């Protein structure tokens, strides 16, 4: 009865596309475009963090930027302090994940409803943003690294080869490394979603009461899902920090949280491919709009979001998937081929 992940063609198509892009991208595409795509890759990892907790755990976080920023600052401080980026990358996952456990414990064991959960995550992000803006003085330093207040932390090192602090990755290598991270995160999440743990998460998303009535501890489960999403968001924050060589309190901004929500909603909640396409499409659009003086990109993004919610409430990927299956079924019927309508599954 169970469909194995390894027999899912969609999974393999995604992995192969990712690997082809990883290997061939820097060879076939000019360096400016590669650097642009690198940005999309980093933000895709960030989008996946929300796509997982919202789409497969039913946890709607309005404050994913809190973990993104925490990971970015953890990486910035530790990489400058240590002079190597290997351990800081690990810390950029572990510290936000640990904070996710602590925050999740209070939210889920405190039985907060979805609305309050959204409010709490948003407020936590604002607190971080405010706090980071007030760290301008020399007294605000960690391990000798000044946090810099609203000016942020400059000169964040590029990723280096483990154990060789001076062997920094060039832009092409950085692209390949980040692409590798995206592929690994995608595969890990697909495995997690297909596992028993993931099935229970989906069950909790569908009906918390029934999940509890089957004997599952939904509070503990949600804390774990939330922590995994927090860790991934933190990792993407570190990637963002090293990509820009700079980080400031805007990493904690509501704009970052809102963008993640828009990417996931536009691409489709309950998919992993959708949010990645959401990042690529909307970030590309933002870039194009930046070239037009009289357009405010945020206003236009908001308008696009409203249109998408009204016209394609399920998001791009689930809508096109349903249309594709319906078209395929009609075509088969037209040719007299028997067979039932395939159910649209929630994963990619």
């Amino acid at each position, binding site marked *: *009865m*169970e469909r194995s992940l390894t027999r899912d063609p969609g999974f393999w198509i995604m992995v192969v596309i990712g690997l082809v892009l990883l290997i061939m991208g820097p060879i076939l595409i000019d360096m400016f475009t590669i650097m642009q795509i690198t940005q999309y890759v980093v933000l895709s990892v960030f989008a996946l963090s929300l796509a997982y907790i919202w789409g497969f755990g039913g946890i709607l976080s309005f404050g994913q930027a809190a973990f993104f920023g925490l990971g970015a600052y953890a990486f910035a401080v530790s990489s400058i302090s240590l002079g190597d980026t290997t351990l800081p990358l690990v810390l950029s996952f572990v510290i936000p994940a640990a904070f996710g456990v602590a925050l999740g414990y209070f939210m889920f064991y405190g039985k907060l409803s979805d609305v309050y959960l959204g409010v709490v995550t948003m407020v936590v992000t604002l607190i971080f943003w405010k706090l980071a803006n007030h760290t301008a003085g020399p007294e605000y330093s960690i391990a000798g690294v000044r946090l810099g207040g609203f000016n942020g932390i400059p000169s964040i090192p590029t990723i280096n080869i483990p154990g060789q602090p001076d062997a920094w990755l060039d832009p092409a290598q950085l692209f390949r490394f980040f692409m590798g991270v995206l592929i690994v995160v995608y595969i890990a999440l697909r495995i997690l979603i297909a596992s*028993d743990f993931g*099935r*229970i998460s*989906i*069950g909790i*998303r*569908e*009906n918390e*009461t*029934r*999940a*509890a*009535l*089957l*004997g*599952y*501890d*939904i509070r503990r489960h949600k804390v774990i899902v939330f922590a995994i999403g927090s860790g991934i968001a933190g990792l993407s924050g570190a990637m963002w920090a090293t990509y820009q060589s700079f980080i400031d309190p805007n990493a904690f901004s509501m704009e970052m949280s809102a963008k993640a929500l828009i990417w996931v909603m536009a691409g489709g909640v309950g998919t992993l491919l959708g949010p990645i396409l959401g990042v690529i499409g909307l970030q590309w659009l933002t870039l194009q709009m930046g070239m037009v003086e009289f357009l405010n990109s945020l206003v236009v993004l908001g308008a696009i979001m409203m249109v998408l919610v009204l016209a394609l409430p399920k998001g791009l990927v689930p809508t096109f998937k349903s249309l594709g299956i319906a078209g395929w079924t009609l075509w088969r019927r037209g040719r007299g081929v028997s067979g039932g309508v395939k*159910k649209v599954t*929630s994963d990619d």
Partner: protein
Amino acid sequence: MTDAEKDKGYRILRTRGLTMRFGGVTAVDNVDFDLRDGELRCLLGPNGAGKSTFFKCLTGQLVPSEGQVMLKEQPITGRNTHEIVNMGVGIKTQVPNVFDGITVYENVRLSARRKNTAGIARDVAEATIEKCGIKHLIKREVGQLAHGQRQLVELAMVLASAPDLILLDEPAAGMTGDERDRLAQLVLEAARSAAVIVVEHDMQFIRQIAKFVTVFNRGAIFREAMIDDIMRDRAVQEIYLGKQADAAA
């Protein structure tokens, strides 16, 4: 019967002074209820008699205002739902409580997986689905099914967890005649290995399965007797039908 006599012997479920208040409304009022191991009991009572609230107090979905619930002679009052369920309780709620967005198989498998390894869970899920007569729906998304079919899916989920105490809240509601007959068979079969409490209004169904019945009214136990005695009881007819019983007489 004295309290001392009442408390004698092992009971899979025992409540003492169980009371649930919502503001000024007392939904469950000082209920002393006993259920022996392997017993099949039906709960009757008009709408609003407190039967579903009683179930919610038993499963930790509501924390009682007063009184105590003992499961397998252990106090469970105030415990979390999943802890009580893991002590061997399975419940089918009044409105089918299922996972709408996933298939029938996945619903039942999630239940079976709680106590079993993946391989055993698969076998248990498939066997239970077949036993409940919903094998033809196995790949269907539960949200697309009719009410009666959803009731059977939820029942399959309860049975797949192999509980020692099964609580069924209006399981026959919305079922066709055939589905109801199958349900009666399933309930009787389940009662061979577990204690069962069934809340139901369908008297034909109750006659198929019940021997001993507890009647609830206004949150309290009104009568406890054999089904034939209950059916003849004028006072029970009165609380079910109100003035109509008088008029008919």
